[in-house]
C-alpha cells in the first residue's frame, strides 16, 4: 500500500498505521509533506513498518530540504510508475 502525502498534519504516522494495518507500506512525500524527508522523521516511519520512503524532487528542491539518505528522490515519471504499476492500493492523506 502506497500512502501519498501532500501535507503535514498531526499524527500522520498514527493515521498511516491505522489505515495500513499489517500490510506492506510505502510513503510518497509531495508538496509540504516533503518536510517529512528530514532525518528526524525516519525512525518514526521505520517503527510504523514503512519499508520505503520516496520524496518528490520538485517539492524537495523548492523547499531546499536536506533529506535523509534513506529517502529516495523521484521525478514525475517515477511517481507514475509507483502509482499506476507498483501498488495495488494508493491512499492520499
Amino acid at each position, binding site marked *: 500500500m502506497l500512502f*501519498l502525502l501532500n501535507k503535514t498534519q498531526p499524527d500522520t504516522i498514527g493515521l498511516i498505521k491505522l489505515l495500513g494495518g499489517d500490510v506492506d507500506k510505502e510513503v510518497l512525500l509531495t508538496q509540504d509533506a516533503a518536510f517529512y524527508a528530514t532525518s528526524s522523521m525516519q525512525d518514526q516511519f521505520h517503527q510504523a513498518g514503512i519499508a520505503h520512503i520516496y520524496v518528490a524532487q520538485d517539492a524537495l528542491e523548492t523547499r531546499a530540504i536536506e533529506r535523509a539518505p534513506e529517502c529516495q528522490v523521484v521525478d514525475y515519471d517515477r511517481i507514475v510508475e509507483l502509482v*499506476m504499476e507498483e501498488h495495488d492500493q494508493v491512499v492520499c492523506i
Partner: protein
Amino acid sequence: MSKNLTINLLSGYQENEDALFAVNLAEAALSKGYGVKIFLYGNGCNLANQEHPVQGASHMNARLQAHMDIGKIGPRLEKIAAMGAEIATCHTTEYGRGTEGDAYRVGIKWGDVGQSFTKFLLTSDVLLTFGH
C-alpha cells in the same frame, strides 16, 4: 489496454500546490500512455473557466505578477485535454461559487457527481484525491 487514472482535484488556483502537482502528474501519465481523467470538484471548479481579462491597469508589479502566474495552470489543463485527458467539473460546486454558466476552457466539460464523476470511477484503475 492501458490503465486509467482519475484525479479528483479539490483545490483551485494559488491556495496550495495540489493543482500544480495534479497537472504535472497528469502530463507524465499521458506521456507514458495512460488514460487520465480529472474531476474538478470543490474549489477545483475554479480552474474550469476561462479567465476574465483585467480591465484597466493591474495593481500588481511585474515581479508579483510573475509569481502569481506560476499557479495559473488553466492553460496547462487545456494542453493535457488536447493530449487526450477527459476533464469535467461539478456544476453544483460552481453554483455555490457563483460561476455556473461561465464559459469553460477548451477541453473542459460541464459535469456532475452523479454521472460524470461516477463514469470516471467506473472506468478507472486508480483514483487519487488531492485536497487540503
